[in-house]
């Protein structure tokens, strides 16, 4: 029982760390592509850790399955969005360069 709670807390903390790192990346990275990278990759990893922590904490298999599926759908949505935004930006960049605001 005790070990489970410790693991939950560790998972949640690791998830928060990745979220923090992702947010820092969005704020500090210079251009759209690296920002997208920070936002989609780090945040999804953070969400995965938090989902794992919550699934462990809830301990009911159905609720855990729902939480994991939330994570999977977020993964699908955010990776697709990331790809679409990046593609749009790439098409924008081709005619004239240096349009990206700081």
């Amino acid at each position, binding site marked *: 029982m005790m070990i489970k709670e410790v693991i939950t807390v560790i998972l949640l903390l690791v998830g928060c760390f990745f979220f923090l790192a992702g947010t820092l990346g969005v704020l500090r990275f210079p251009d759209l592509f690296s920002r997208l990278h920070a936002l989609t990759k780090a945040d999804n990893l953070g969400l995965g850790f938090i989902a794992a922590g919550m699934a462990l904490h809830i301990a009911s298999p159905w609720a855990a399955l729902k939480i994991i599926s939330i994570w999977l*759908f977020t993964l*699908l949505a955010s990776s697709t969005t990331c*790809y679409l935004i990046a593609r*749009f930006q790439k098409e*924008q960049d081709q005619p004239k360069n240096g349009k990206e605001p700081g």
Partner: protein
Amino acid sequence: MSVLIDLLLAILTVYLALQCLLAQRLSQSVFLFFAFGLALALAWVRLGAVDVAITEAAIAAGFMGVLFLDALRDFSPAVSENQEDLKAVQNPPSKNATKSLLLPRLALGLGLGLFLLIALEAVWKTPDGGGLTAAAVALLPESGVEHPVTAVLLNFRAYDTWLEIGVILLGLLAIYAAGGINLYRKPGVAAKDPLLRQVILFSTPVLFLFGAFLLYFGKTGPGGAFQAAVLWGAIGIMLHLGGWPVFAVLPRWLGQLILTLGLGFFLVLGFLFMARGDALFEYPPAYAGILILIVETLAAISIAAALTTIYANINQMQEEPKQNESTT
């Protein structure tokens, strides 16, 4: 600890609302509106109103957000070739304009202040026993459902819900009035991206299933027609964007039938039992459960169709001037 979370959430919601109003660029406003909708949904969850939270997230943040994004695209520099239009939209009005805006602003400020006072008074007067919750729960066995919110929405106060469905249809009629009656327009620019199309195809059955789950789950817990309708409407909008205009292939009368089905059936049902001497929208308790499920399903289909059609029409209306341009 929970007080701290609530406090943070309250501050965040107000801050996001202010930022949304004060943002310099239109795109910032739109994305802050998304964030504001999500914060508001979280606030509703914290208040224990999960039904409202789902509706807020789905309709206010989701559907309105899609409409805003669509409007934003028409103003974005990538699409709009008319730079002066763009400047007029993005820059705050000039000094001359501010002077003429003084009166409307004053009126708006006074109105909002009055509204705030009324809201404060309503909060002040909230009874300790939770208002009419006890009365609704006491009558729950007669309503045919097990969730008090659904019982109130579709049985005790069915008239209000019926009007809400009517309001959505009225919105659609207004759009027809502005853009010319065309039941469902084909998308001018369909997404050509293979990945996007695959993802849309993949999410269609998932969204449908989830909407059906929310619809049926409304009997026992938070969920119901409106929440399901937004998810089904989302299917329609995504298919529209992906180049499969589902409603365009239907004959005109069938589309109109689907749009009015929910409102019409609800109304007929409401008056049907008046013939037996019951009140308007009073169902016999024995059949109430199944009747409510049918009403909710038809209403969800109608609302979903209305939302899809609203999006399709608005999406098209602003695209028409650029139609002769090359469609990429």
